[in-house]
Structure formats: C-alpha cells, structure tokens
C-alpha cells in the first residue's frame, strides 16, 4: 500500500517512494499502443517502399523515421509520466497559451504551406504541426477548468470551456485544417459531457453548432474542395465525378479487395500503384485493409478497443475529477480520430485530413498521441497516491 503523505513535486515523489507509482503501470494499454505503433511502422514501410525504391531513394526512409517517432513518443510518454499529473493543473493555462501562440505563428510566414493548408513549422527535415500539440493543451486546460465544478458543470464554466475551445478552433480553421478543428470540438464535447454539463446546455450547444456549419456551407465560407468532400460522401460512387469521389471509391475498393485474409504484406495493388492517395498518412488504413484483410483490420480495431477501454477504465479509477477529465478528453480525441479516419477510408464518413492515431506516418501526431497516453498512464498509476 502506498503512503498517503503526498508531497507534490518530482523530487519528493522520487525520493520518498520512487517505485510505488510505477508498479501500477497499465501494462495492457502500453502493450496495445506498442502493438499498434509497431504495426504502423510496418504499414508505413509497405506503403512507401516501392515508390521510394522507384525514385532511387532508400526504401527504408519512412520506416526509419516512423520508428524514430515511435521511440521518441515512448520517451515523451515516459517524461510526461514522471511528474504527478496533478502538477499540470498549475501549468495548463500556460501550456495552452503557448500552443495558441504557436497556432498563431504558423499562420505567419514562419509556417509552411502543405496541401493548401498553412499547418506546419519546418525545422530542418522535420515538420511540427502545432495543431497536434494544441489538442493536448486543450485537454489539460479544459480538464483543469471543468474539474473545478465538481461534476456539476455550470454555465459560466461551460461558457469558458466553449470560449477556450473556440480560440483554438478559430486559429486552426484559419490554416485551414478542418480535420484538427473537428478533433478539438470532439475533445471539448468529451470533457464537458463527463464534467457534468447539463442536458439542455448540450442541446443548445449542438443547435448552435448545426446552425454554424449550415451557415458556413451556405455562405461559401468553406473551400470548394471541402464542400465536395462532404457532398461526394453523400452521393453514390457513380455520380461522384470529382477526384474526391474517385479517392473515396478507390479507398473502399482497396479495403474490400483485401477480403478475409488480405492480399498479403507488400502485395496490395490498389495502394502500391497509387490508386489510393496519401496512403502512408491519412489513408494508411487502406493498406491494412488491402494487405491484411478483415482479420488484420479487425485485429487493429480490437487493439484500438483495448486502448480506449483502458483509457475509459482509468477515467473511472482516477482518484480525482481532474484525472477523469484528462482521460475523457484523450478518450474523445482518440475515439473521434479512429472513427473518422477508418470511417472515411470505408466510405461511411466524409474525407477529412485526420491521422489514424499511432498508425499514420507523422511525428507530431505520434508524439501527441504518446504524450496523451502518457497522461492517462500517469493518472492510472497514481490512482492511489
């Protein structure tokens, strides 16, 4: 049993009872996350090896980078776990402020435009996506703010949460990055629901959101390609004549062609021959579907299931509401990203640029996800302290 003489601060914890929290490491969560990340490295390699080799480049380039990200992510998770999560309450506002500054800076010439969106800082050969870090910062700041109401979220706090989210959302939509914007909204919903927001407040919020989205569509405030993505998704494959419709059709074909057992590792033709775009990033699931089949896809879905279950369980077990809300935010973030990404690959959700956590190629997403999991693990292992 742990001592309850809690003196917050790294030194204190390590000095007094260094082994105790680590004994409660959530091994299933770490295991499932490592499995997904490992599978991700393999899938990224499969998706890129031929095109890299054809271009005369090292076919292992992407594999090496992704593996580096994964290891880096694991280290970052460890770093996040060292400090008692309760300490983050004090710094969450500052972290959030920094992330807002970064979101603003990326819009300036300091940022780089990729695929028509100004979403990146280029640092050497690596790129940093501030929107990814903002997700994490939002989880912390919302958890901090909403945990003050002790499970009965009142209107001022809810309004505060909406305003904080709105700040981040606004800056993200200016890039424009609709995918990350949606994730930010999902995080807020997750946190405020668990924090005890009232039903009528939630209903009013939903109404405002619906009206807002319709107005944006109606007044042409979204780019044409984004509207195409939304409307093509609603149309059948034959009518979808634009390239967006073609993408989503090809993604479905790739996954379906995998069948029960898949075409075999490296054997997917839809993904290898370029019929599916962005296959190492947003459409990575098509590689899993085509090459590993239903068995592989269902296994991946199960691993995600384990991860979400462990996060949910931690939310339940958390010693305080702050921990619960951190878990709720991370849970909502992961759930939304998984559902939206796999859903769009399979044609039941519109296409938006959202990475599949731990699987899609990309450092920012990988680090963010690991750090988010680090927070959850932190809450989990300190549930008695």
């Amino acid at each position, binding site marked *: 049993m742990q001592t309850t003489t809690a003196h917050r601060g790294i030194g204190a914890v390590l000095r007094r009872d260094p082994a105790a929290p680590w004994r409660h490491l959530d091994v299933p969560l770490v295991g499932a996350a490592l499995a997904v990340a490992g599978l991700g490295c393999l899938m990224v390699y499969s998706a890129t090896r031929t095109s890299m080799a054809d271009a005369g480049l090292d076919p292992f380039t992407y594999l090496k980078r992704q593996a580096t990200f994964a290891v880096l992510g694991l280290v970052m998770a460890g770093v996040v776990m060292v400090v008692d999560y309760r300490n983050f309450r004090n710094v969450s506002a500052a972290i959030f402020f920094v992330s807002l500054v970064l979101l603003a800076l990326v819009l300036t010439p300091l940022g780089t435009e990729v695929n028509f969106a100004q979403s990146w800082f280029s640092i050497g050969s690596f790129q940093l996506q501030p929107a990814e870090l903002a997700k994490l910062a939002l989880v912390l700041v919302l958890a901090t703010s909403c945990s003050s109401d002790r499970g009965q979220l009142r209107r001022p706090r809810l309004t505060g949460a909406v305003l904080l989210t709105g700040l981040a959302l606004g800056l993200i939509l200016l890039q424009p990055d609709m995918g990350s914007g949606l994730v930010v909204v999902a995080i807020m919903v997750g946190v405020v629901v668990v924090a005890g927001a009232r039903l009528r407040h939630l209903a009013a919020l939903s109404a405002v959101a619906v009206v807002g989205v319709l107005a944006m569509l109606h007044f042409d405030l979204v780019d044409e390609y984004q509207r195409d993505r939304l409307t093509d998704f609603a149309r059948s494959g034959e009518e979808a004549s634009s390239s967006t419709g073609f993408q989503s059709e090809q993604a479905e074909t790739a996954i379906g062609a995998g069948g029960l057992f898949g075409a075999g590792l490296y054997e997917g033709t839809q993904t290898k021959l370029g019929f599916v775009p962005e296959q190492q990033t947003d459409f990575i699931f098509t590689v899993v579907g085509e090459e590993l089949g239903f068995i592989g896809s269902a296994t991946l879905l199960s691993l995600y299931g384990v991860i979400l279950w462990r996060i949910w369980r931690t939310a339940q077990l958390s010693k305080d509401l702050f921990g619960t809300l951190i878990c709720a935010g991370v849970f909502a973030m992961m759930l939304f990203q998984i*559902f939206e990404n796999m859903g769009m690959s399979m044609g039941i959700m519109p296409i938006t640029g959202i990475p599949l956590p731990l699987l899609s190629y990309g450092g920012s997403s990988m680090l963010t996800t690991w750090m988010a999991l680090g927070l959850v693990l932190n809450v989990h292992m300190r549930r008695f302290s």
Partner: protein
Amino acid sequence: MTTDSPRLRLGIIAVVAVSLFCALFARMWFLQVLTAGEHELAAEANQRRVVPLVAPRGRILDRNGDILVANRASNVVTVERSMLRRLDEPERGELIERLAAAVDTPPFMISERLEDQRLGPFTPVPVAEDLPEEVLIELRERKGEFPGVTAQQSAVRAYPHGSLAAHLLGYVGAINTDELEAAGGVDEPSGYRLTSRLGKEGIERSFEEDLRGQDGEVVLEVDARGVPIRELSRREPVQGNDVVLSIDLATQRVAEQALAQGMSRSQGSRDPETGQPVLFGGSTVVLDVKEGTVAAMASWPTFNPADFVYQITQAQFAALTDPAQGTPFVNRAVQGQYAPGSTWKLITALSGLETGLITPESTIVDPGRYVIPDCARNCTRTNAGSAAYGEVALRKALTVSSDVYFYGLGARAWQDRARLGDTPIQDMAAKLGFGSPTGVNLPTEAAGRLASPALRAEAYAQNPDLFLTGDWFIGDNVNIAIGQGDIAVTPIQLANAYATFATDGTRYEPNLALRVQDAEGNVVRDIEPRIVERVTLPPGAQGPILDGLIGATASEDPRGTAYTAFRGFPHDQYPVAGKTGTAQNGGNRKDDALFAAFAPANDPRYALSVVMERAGFGSTWAAPVAESILSSLSGLETPEVVQPAAGGNRG
C-alpha cells in the same frame, strides 16, 4: 470526491464508443467479407491494362502483284476519354494545353476531336497523326505528365495509286456498335475490341477475315495515372494475309480514264428541274468471261480512300454523299440501277426465239412507227428519229436497233400469254442473272428490278394510293421489250448477262479476287471460279444474234448503231459484238447512255458494260468509252477515239 454524475456520464461515453466501433466493424464486415468479390474485381481491373498489339493488315495486290493497298507507319497520338473524366476541370484543361503544345496543334482542335460523338466512349480518340519521331519520344519520356495519352507508331493504310480502284478497294474505319454486335460482341471468338478497326466497304470489307490478321496483346500493370509499371504477359500479333485481285492495274487505269473522259465531256447540262448544275455519274464493268472474274470496275465520280485513313471529317463525308456532287461514295458499278434501254434487246430476242414467237429469219416491215393493238390511249410508238428500216429480220433488228421489231415481239408475247405465261421476257432475263445480285465479292450489291403483272398487283394491293392501277397492260410489255418500263439493272448485271450469252450460257458469280496469300507469297487459298448456272439458250440463237451484235459495231450498211464509234477499229482481228442503249428518264431529263458488249466475238474473252447517267445517246457517249477500253484490251493499234458529235442514233 467523485459524485455519481461523472460515472453516469462515463457510461454514456462508453455507449457512444461501443456504437461507433460496432459501425466500423459492421462496415468492415460488409466490405471485406460480404462484398469482397466485387472489390477484388474492381481492383484487378484497375491495375491491369490490356494493350492490344494490332496486327498489320494484309495488303491488296493486283493480279500481277502490283500493290494497290499497303500499310505505312504513322506516329499517332490517342487520348482515352475515360481517363480524362477522372481529372478535375482545371487539370483536364491543362493536360489538353500541354498536349497541344507537344504535338504542335491548337488546343481547340484537340478538344473538338475529343468531343466527336461518332466514336464510342471507350474508343481511344486520335488527336494528332503523322507526327515526327521526336514528338513520340518526348511524349513517352514525359508519360507521367500525360495520363490517358498514348503515343505510338501504328500502321495505317497507304494507297500508292491514289484514288485508283477506290470503290472496289473500299476503306478501313473504327468499328461501330452494330458491327461489334454482328461480330458477336467484344469477347472471343470474334477477336474484335471496342477499339478495333475493320474493313467498311469494298474488298476491305468482303475479305475482312483474310486481311485482318490476328491481334496480339500486352497485359501491363499500370498505376493510378495509367502509367505502365511492368509487363505481365505478351502475345505477338499475326499479320493479315494479302488478297490478290483479278483486276490488273493497267486495264483498271484504262477503264477509269476512258470513263472519266467520257463523263467529263458529257457534263455541263444543268438539271432541268432545279436549274442547278448537277454532276451525274457513270460506271463501267469489264468481266473476264473465261475466268469468271472482274477485269476492271470503275465508278465515276470517285474519291480518295486516303481520306478515310484517320477519322474522316464530317464535311468531307458530306461531300462524298452529296447528290449535287454526284455522290462519289456510291459504287455505281454494283449499286447503280438503271433502265437498260436497247441493250435489253438481247434478252427480248432470246425470249422471242425460245418461245417461238420469232425465228431468226422471220421478218416484219418497219415503217418507223408502231401502233399497239387492243389499245385505248397513247397507242403509237416510233423508232428513234422515226427512222424507217423497211424489211427487218433479227440480225438487222439488232444492228440498227429497230424498236418496231421488238415492240411487236413484246405485244405478241402478251397476246399469247395463255400459252407463254405472263412473263416470258422477264423469265429469260432472270436466267441471265437480272433481278438478283450477281454475287460479286463486294458487300453492297443492288438486286435490280424485274417488273411483272404479279408483282405489280401485289404492290398495288399493299399500297393502293401509291399507284394508278394494279393491272398490267399490253403497253407495259411493249415498253419492257425495249428495256424501258419498270426494269432496272446494275452495270455488273448487264455485263454479266452479255458474258453469259458469250459463253453459251455459263453464268458466273464474278470473282474480284484470285487468291489469298501470306506475306511471303505462299498461297493460303485459291478463289475458285463460281458457276451459278449453265443456262440453256434457244438452239440456233447464237449465230444470228452474234451477227446482229457484230453488225452494230462493224456494219456500214445497214449502218450499225455503234458503227461511228468503232470506225477504224480492227474488226477483222478483234471483232466486237455490242449493243447500244439509250434509256429515257422521263420528263425532259436527258437520257442515260449505255453500251454492252463482248469481244473478241469469235472467241469471247471480255464482256463489258458502260452506263453514263444523263449523257444522251448510247451510240454517242457510251460506245466510244467502250471502244477505247476494248482497243486497249485488244492490244492492237487502233485509231484515236472518235469524239462524240451532235446527233447519233438513240437505239
């Protein structure tokens, strides 16, 4: 610390999460288990591109091996429209601009050709042809920039002699839906694809199976932009066989030139109905009566088959089918149908001898006019120019072309119908091949028309408003006897009927080809003569009719109708048995000029017919054309063609 509320809320979130996961799982099950098969097919079709290796088409040679149609290489750029549709508008426009710059053509011309609705949706559209080799290389090197664009060398038809024999050679064009269906669809065993080209007319069509060869194919793995990654399999094409025709270049050229000269001279009149200048056509057919083959076949005006090598423009095709320009596209030799006029008297004479209505020696007195017996109105007919020929028997009747002689024969055939049946003349005509296609190896041959009381009654019963009467009168028989009335023949039928008479009744389906051989010249198959019928001609008919027909070209007194045209012809060494014809067109339209003949009369080798629409007298216009062809065929020194002069004999 914790209240119930967060726990309850966590429960809600769990329910949401489980539902969403169920949705993902269900969709996965649907795609990868329930409908996996169709996705597998789609993926397979995506990445496999079958590129046909079109077999070089066989050549068409004349009987001496001279090349009439060969192949030449042309660098062609085609665009797959299905690929274009995958691109968004700005991208599509940019591609067309890029392509236009690469092949040095204005972009609008490429867009225009891409919109040509005459081609099927999957047929690659040719947008530029005969490009320099560098362009081809450049397009291939930059293939990534040109999705759906194919630049390749392809074999197209080459015509070393220009428009020579255009009508009988025909042309090659892109297969259409009907043709594809007729061939049994896109799958084996027809071997045709949506992109195939095939013979559309003439020899190209009737010998399609020999000429086309067997296409090969390369199966390629392609990426999403249609760029080949690697070759999966390959089957080499087999070149088509050559067809050796029965015509020879020299004779064909002579026939075409003689016809063209005659036709050009006969033009110049305006159509009396419209007042507009109208081009009228003509044709000539020369048959080898010993071989049962076509020695030459010409139709005027003609066209250049090279216009069909790529997709012919709509304007070009409209000109080829414009009646005011003489519908050059029509092969009049087998598709033109004309009243035979006096060339028909051969048939009436044979019928008269067979039925016993006349003997070679029985005579009449021809006063120049004939009154139809048992007749109510319009009962008087005259010879051309009302010429009176006095005492006339069969020989003289043919030589001078006495209408009165044959009017009487026609009338008596009707009067004696209780014994002879309704149609003794038409029956004889049918035996000589009229009223049905001759069976020459060309795809679109007309049947001609033989009127009869029964057919007329039937037509009237079906459409009483269209005809004045359904009855047949004695006057109809009188008209038919001299090749007028409801009789229509094609030039090849006319030549073939004279050939049948010349060979004592051996009627052939004329062959246009002698054999099919492979590229090295080894015979693949010989095309055997096809005898349809051995017609029994009335005994004793041959001599007197031959005399009469020889007289028509050679007799000075009584003067033969074609005597002037054949003046100075070496009749002793190369006697010609011929018959002029001048067929009335009704109203104040000019007459069609005809001539039919065979030669040498003592040992016939060739039979020929000449038909010239709206030219005038057969003796003036058609006989000189025939004379000039026969001079050349005889191989003898002959005088210059007598220029047609005013006047002449209508018969």
